[in-house]
């Protein structure tokens, strides 16, 4: 990851508390499993306009417990597939949080930034420093950094490349 793509900029789509994975991607679409297909139905049951109107780089902002419910990885896949660059919330449900990191969807916890933002605001997010700037409000927020182990997964580009490297290392060690 170069420094440039650690800076994200986009327009806010603001949602409330307890946004569950059933509204992020309804189960009637779980007979599909590619990001492109899923993206067309992203947020459909809570905001039918979203999938058509979202632009590349936009940022979803949620309240408490974002991504609660099902373990479906289809949810962060649909969000990423829709072009969303980052999700910011007051807090995340734990499976959604893992899934987002595993598939390389940046995800940040910031109660203040999440509460202040409204739909249409522009945010600039620096993943390296963890700062979020709301250009509409002229406010900058700090988020706590990821634990080093999680940062390693993120820097590797997700859990699969991270594990690939480990598997190769182990194989090299065994054949040595």
């Amino acid at each position, binding site marked *: 990851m170069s420094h440039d793509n650690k800076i994200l900029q986009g327009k806010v789509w603001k949602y409330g508390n*307890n946004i*569950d994975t*059933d*509204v992020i991607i*309804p*189960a*009637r679409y*779980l*007979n*599909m*499993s590619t990001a492109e297909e899923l993206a067309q139905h992203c947020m*459909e*049951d*809570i905001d039918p306009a979203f999938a058509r109107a979202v632009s590349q780089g936009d940022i979803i902002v949620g309240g*408490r*417990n974002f991504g*609660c*419910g*099902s*373990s*479906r*990885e*289809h949810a*962060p*896949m649909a969000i990423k597939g829709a072009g969303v660059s980052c999700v910011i919330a007051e*807090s995340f*449900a*734990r*499976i959604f949080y*893992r*899934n987002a990191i*595993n*598939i390389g969807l940046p995800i940040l916890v910031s109660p203040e930034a999440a509460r202040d933002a409204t739909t249409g605001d522009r945010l600039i997010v620096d993943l390296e420093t963890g700062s979020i700037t709301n250009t509409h409000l002229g406010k900058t927020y700090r988020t706590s950094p990821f*634990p080093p*182990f*999680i940062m390693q997964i993120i820097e590797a580009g*997700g*859990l*699969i490349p991270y*594990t*690939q490297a*480990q*598997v190769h290392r182990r194989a090299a060690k065994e054949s040595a």
Partner: protein
Amino acid sequence: MGHTLAEKIIAKHVVDARPGDAGLSPGDLVQVAVDVVLSNDITAPIALREFEKLGVERVFDPTKVVMVADHFAPNKDIKSAEQCAMMRRFAREQGLPYHYDVGRMGIEHVLLPEQGLVLPGDLVVGADSHTCTYGALGAFATGMGSTDIAVAMATGQIWMRVPETMRFVYTGELQPWVGGKDLILYTIGRIGVSGALYRSMEFTGPVIDGLSMAGRFTMANMAIEAGAKAGLFAVDATTRAYVAGRANREYTMYASDPDADYAEVIEIDVSDVPPQVALPHLPENARPVAEARSVTIDQAVIGSCTNGRMEDLRIAASILRGRHVHRDVRCIVIPGTQQVYLDALREGLIETFIEAGAVVSTPTCGPCLGGYMGILAAGERAVSTTNRNFRGRMGHADSEVYLSGPAVAAASAIVGHIAGPEDVTA
């Protein structure tokens, strides 16, 4: 300082633990070895694609990788059929003995304990959020996404954060018709849908000691609806009796130390807890059934990984026997597994359901997640023994789901609006 049940099971599974380590503390990130890795027909397809990317030829241990076609199976459409076919091909290539297809399959979280595939002390990860159900057996079981499960299938290991534990102590006398479902709905009503976020719930107290395995599975199943990572019960005589005759390997029983460190202890006197209903659109909207009595319903669903066991069907049948489902209600009964179906048939329960005007389906998750076999139209309402009442969960975004135990669901099916069992049996 002592440790909780959850901490002890995780500690026992830590990879490369150094002798003399002082034990784990909540917040520690650890690499653990898993005893069972589970996936189903909607989460496996993504997991298998990720597995392929890893460049690993074989799963780490074919006897520990379990796959169940239950969500959209028997296949509801061509795309679902393709997903099940992909899983079937993989299971054959890898020689997985515990791939459950139509005819052998059941709803995964009813099936795995029934088949003795999960045992006390196990560490289980599953690509299904209700994997936490196995906590009822004194196992540490948690849901993850498909990518995590792909890595666990390949390596037999996964990372996790050791959770804080919340202890729940249930005391008092259970009121008539109150079971595990009412207790867990009431509990989620108390603490909210993120009340146990990232934590482990531990269910204890004299009421729990007297609770059946079915009731415990129901409670553990819904730990995720409070945001929890797991929901555990200590192993006792009830657990051992359930596992006896199912287990074909050794297992270990763990218990929390008396001086274990709990993040929070919540005491609940059940004496004043009547049968519960969770109103749309969150499981935390739990209310006494009397407060929802005016709500007319179009459908009643009795089944699922939450309430699809023999005890649940017996309760529903005891209310439906000799009575009839209201003419404006579709009542759908779904036994959790083939064995539950067969037992219910032999006991005469299926006859009772059909005579009462209910339909009985083959085991499937079907309507619980709005898959098929009972989808709601706009404006329709269902009372359901399932676990989620999110917007659009059972069909149209403008439909509604009211969660309850089997007694309330059966009574409501008869009356045509939400009703307590005493409304029909009195």
